[in-house]
């Protein structure tokens, strides 16, 4: 009945050496990290800000975890799993002898409870969407204290990768709040830190509102390094709230901090390089980011009804012309001060497994762009250098972007200038981030948007909200009831096969096809992805940085500091 183990054939996690483990790693000491805002909660199930994620990463553990550096899934609290022949059911064996920080044993009851909490949106969970397949929840049952069976509603190729979204919570601490419907407020910032129990490498030791959160080593943590030394190496992780990035940089340079919670801004590269050359910090080049910028035009059917521009503004040729008109290398040099890489689709080379290197690379071709625009009736009829539509109205649209984000503000200006060269007039309007997001999520009218948003998981099957026409991240035309175009229907069909295919090669082939269809119609035009640089003090060692945030702290258990 049960096929070979899908995940967890290798050594159990406690025996698995951390990627960078080596002899002689110093043990002890404090790591000082800066974040810009304090956490909104100690409960990742109810708040999803970056600082709450760090709390979860340090104090909680998952059944399976995606290694952010290799993008491979690794069993964590689980010892391993077996998959049924139909691919719908996973039997997961839990590691024995694991206890929460308060000494309570971890069992399958905690796993079942965590799923129940995740799916209870009425009680305040905001994790449910991320834990569903095609809108349907997983079914979880405890077989014995160390075995659970997880049943998927449909065949789902990435399988247990989904569980990376969900830290396991202690039933004995939170069952009452879930029953009372107050789970949404559970483990808020007013909770005494001694009340918070977890399975992660650290335990919450102190929270000072507005100032810092202190995490101490969890002496009951279950993992050890290759030499059998219990992890984590650090005595404490001190997460300081430093709202201003310039102040963060100064503190890092002065030795008051060991690392920041995010990547280096392009404008900070030069001073940090000088500090690195002087031996005060380490500056690490992690390569290209996993998320590029995004430019799209409102493609909702009827969005331009009654507008004289309706004849051309939603045409594929316009977006293709825009893609041709922008010099991506110059864009990278201007916007990211050289620390950017031209991209031609929603995936960047950072996504090692799913990026298709065979996609056509759009050249910088303003003449070709003009030809394309002429094919949809946009030509310069009066010789003023501006393209006109067949009604002799100038070709013009409003580009919304996010205020306060330097890269986006510069990028929108570059797009405006590049399109002006081919006769398209663009009026850039910066909006505050929340207002901008609500503009397109709530279906309010707009012409075009330049923004940056991330697909949370490298596996496309876990970003269906972007790839399927019914998806809620389909920014150009959200949550379509039926696919609005043939090519979107084609992508839906390809993705339906892609998420159920069992052979990885077949999944890759299908997704390459999806990327080609996407590139042909360009619902979103991508220009550049920034290069990611991260900085850490020179006393930190054994770092395993990843391109996604938090670049260092996802593997905090193996970070060490020199005495």
């Amino acid at each position: 009945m049960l096929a070979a183990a899908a995940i967890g054939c290798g050594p159990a996690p406690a025996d698995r050496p951390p990627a960078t483990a080596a002899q002689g790693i110093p043990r002890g000491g404090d790591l000082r990290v800066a974040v810009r805002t304090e956490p909104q909660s100690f409960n990742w199930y109810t708040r999803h800000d970056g600082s709450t994620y760090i709390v979860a990463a340090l104090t909680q553990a998952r059944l399976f975890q995606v290694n952010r550096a290799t993008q491979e899934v690794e069993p964590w609290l689980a010892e391993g799993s077996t998959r049924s022949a139909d691919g719908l059911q996973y039997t997961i064996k839990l590691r024995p002898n694991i206890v929460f920080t308060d000494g309570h044993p971890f069992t399958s009851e905690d796993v079942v409870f965590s799923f129940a909490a995740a799916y209870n949106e009425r009680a305040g969970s905001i994790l449910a969407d991320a834990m569903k397949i095609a809108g349907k929840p997983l079914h979880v049952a405890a077989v014995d204290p160390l075995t659970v069976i997880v049943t998927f509603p449909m065949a789902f190729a990435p399988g247990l990768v989904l569980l990376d979204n969900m830290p396991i919570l202690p039933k004995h601490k939170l069952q009452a709040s879930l029953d009372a419907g107050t789970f949404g407020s559970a483990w808020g910032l007013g909770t005494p830190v001694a009340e918070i129990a977890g399975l992660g490498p650290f335990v919450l030791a102190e929270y000072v509102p507005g100032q810092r959160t202190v995490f101490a080593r969890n002496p009951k943590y279950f993992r050890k390094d290759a030499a059998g030394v219990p992890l984590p190496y650090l005595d404490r992780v001190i997460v300081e709230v430093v709202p201003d990035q310039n102040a963060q940089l100064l503190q890092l340079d002065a030795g008051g901090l060991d690392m920041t919670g995010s990547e280096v801004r392009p404008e900070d590269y030069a001073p940090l390089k000088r500090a690195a050359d002087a031996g005060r910090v380490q500056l690490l080049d992690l390569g290209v980011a996993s998320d590029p910028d995004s430019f799209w035009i409102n493609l909702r059917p009827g969005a331009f009804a009654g507008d004289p521009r309706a004849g051309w503004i939603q045409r594929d040729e316009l977006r293709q012309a825009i893609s041709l008109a922008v010099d991506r290398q110059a864009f990278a040099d201007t916007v990211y001060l050289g620390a950017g890489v031209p991209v031609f689709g929603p995936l960047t080379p950072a996504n090692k497994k799913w990026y298709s290197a065979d996609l056509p690379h759009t050249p910088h071709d303003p003449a070709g762009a003009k030809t394309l625009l002429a094919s949809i009736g946009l030509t310069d009829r009066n010789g003023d250098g501006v393209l006109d539509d067949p009604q002799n109205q100038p070709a013009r649209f409003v580009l919304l972007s996010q205020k306060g984000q330097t890269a986006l503000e510069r990028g929108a200006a570059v797009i405006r200038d590049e399109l002006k060269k081919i006769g398209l007039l663009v009026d850039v309007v910066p909006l505050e981030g929340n207002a901008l997001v609500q503009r397109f999520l709530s279906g309010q009218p707009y012409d075009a948007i330049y923004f940056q948003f991330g697909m949370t998981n490298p596996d496309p099957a876990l970003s269906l909200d972007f790839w399927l026409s019914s998806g809620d991240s389909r920014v150009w035309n959200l949550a379509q009831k039926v696919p609005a175009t043939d090519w979107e229907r084609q992508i839906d069909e390809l993705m339906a096969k892609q998420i159920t295919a069992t052979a990885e090669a077949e999944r890759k082939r299908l997704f390459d096809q999806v990327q080609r269809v996407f590139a042909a119609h360009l619902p979103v035009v991508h220009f550049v992805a920034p290069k990611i640089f991260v900085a850490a003090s020179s006393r930190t060692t054994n770092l395993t940085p990843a391109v996604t945030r938090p670049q260092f702290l996802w593997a905090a258990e193996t970070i060490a500091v020199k005495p």
Partner: protein
Amino acid sequence: MLSYLLRRLLFAAFLVFAVSSASMVVTRLAPGDYATGALGIGASQEARTQMRARFGLDRPFAAQYWDWLGRAVRLDFGRSLAYDRPVIDLIPERAANTALLALSALFLATIVGLPLGVLTGTYRGGALPGTVRAVSVLLLSMPPLLTSLLLVFLAARTGWFPIGGMRSIDSAVTGTGALDLLWHMVVPVLALAMPLTAMFERLQSQAIAEVVGQPYVLATLARGVPRARVIWRDALKAALRPAASIYGIVVGTLLSGSFAVEIITSWPGLGRLMLDALRARDVYLVAGCAAAGSAFLAAGTLLSDAALAVVDPRSTE
């Protein structure tokens, strides 16, 4: 005098009500909301709807406002959406931190700025008054944001003072709490106090120069009373009116100025809390912070009016 102070007290209450109401209205009516920011792109419409319902954001704004107002008169400013805690629990500590910063800066600016103003107002020539005047003009032209960046830079380069924060991590353990707090206050207090000191110096300088030229001062000097005694005992009291009259405004300026200083120096005050609340569209917390801020302003104005009434009783008429 009593009725005058009562009138000012009523005005203070109105100010708190008006500012907090206006901030709530503006935050609520601005595009975007807490659910949009908290769930981000990719969350389903159902999830957003559910979150709005859970926090009561789906109700008509008028109903929300009246509910809030009904509770606010009992000093219950609602529950923060982002932190899921009563606003009244979040504000006092942050407000106290801001008050500590602002009052220390005000105290420092007063004890330094006013005497320097007397010095430059009474001794027009000479290197020292000239230098003081030049430095004052320079400091006045620098916003607190720039001053704090410069001071943070200096602190980072020299290592003399902490670059940010309010307390060292183990100060409670080592029992050095008060000293540690003072040490952390140096940079933010200086950042706030320096432009303020310059303003007091300029104001006091001009005021004392005018008073020193008055016939009654000249007559006193002519009678042989020592110049220092005339200036510091008689002329100073009369020349304090302009400084006293702007104390209320100064408190307001300090609060708005401390907003930037708190961000740069990582001081956990009201300004930073309000900024986070605004970013998150946490309407009730924004209104609570605005109420606390306006209470500061009202208290400052009240204090200023009282001081002015003491210095110049004609102002109560």
